[in-house]
């Protein structure tokens, strides 16, 4: 009960925070660049859509575990994540390099 109520409010707030990152921060979209940002230790938070193929999801999580970077499983599929980023294409995973004015890095990884 509490979880259902919580997800709607926090879901919107994640979208708001993502929108702020898109406007003011640095990010990369897509699997190849996410791995690149993890290897170069530039990524600070990784967001994965819920319909990401499980092998790819495990791979990104493993890299993030090695790099000690938080991973957030977005409550929505790649179409929703693309819309949340303000793009007209699907985004399966994205990496936030510089959050700009947003506090997404401090507030979000708590729930993973």
């Amino acid at each position, binding site marked *: 009960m509490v979880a259902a109520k919580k997800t709607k409010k926090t879901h919107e707030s994640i979208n708001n925070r993502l929108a702020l990152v898109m406007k003011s921060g640095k990010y990369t979209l897509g699997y190849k660049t996410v791995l690149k940002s993890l290897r170069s230790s530039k*990524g*600070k938070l990784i967001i994965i859509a819920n319909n990401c193929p499980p092998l790819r999801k495990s791979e990104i999580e493993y890299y993030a575990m090695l*790099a000690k*970077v938080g991973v957030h499983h977005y409550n929505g599929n790649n179409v929703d994540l693309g819309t949340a980023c303000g793009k007209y294409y699907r985004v399966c995973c994205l990496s936030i390099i510089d959050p700009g004015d947003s506090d997404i890095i401090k507030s979000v990884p708590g729930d993973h």
Partner: protein
Amino acid sequence: MVKFLKPNKAVIVLQGRYAGRKAVIVRSFDDGTRDRAYGHCLVAGIKKYPSKVIRKDSAKKTAKKSRVKCFVKLVNYRHLMPTRYTLDVDLKDIVTADCLQSKDKRVTASKETKKRFEERFKTGKNRWFFTKLRF
């Protein structure tokens, strides 16, 4: 935010002739060099894994079964899968960037790493590294 492609990290080579083999990073070039403008590293890996040694084996047989064949290669970061394991064998002096210039330098480097890998295998440490990855 921690760099993990550092020397002594055990990795798995994903592409090429040595795909599926385990290797250890000896030296990493994060920003590339003039010849290779991408992040890559020098790895020393196992070409042929040592076989399973059982208690029944004679000394001659154990010696034969514990042989390791090695390779030295420059690999793009994209063609590696990093693992959480490390292997601290000191290979910095034998495996250098210029040991890949000529065939005989490459052979001597492989022979030296073979020696070091074999003595590490015989101590029984880093057992994960010397077992073949099944796929």
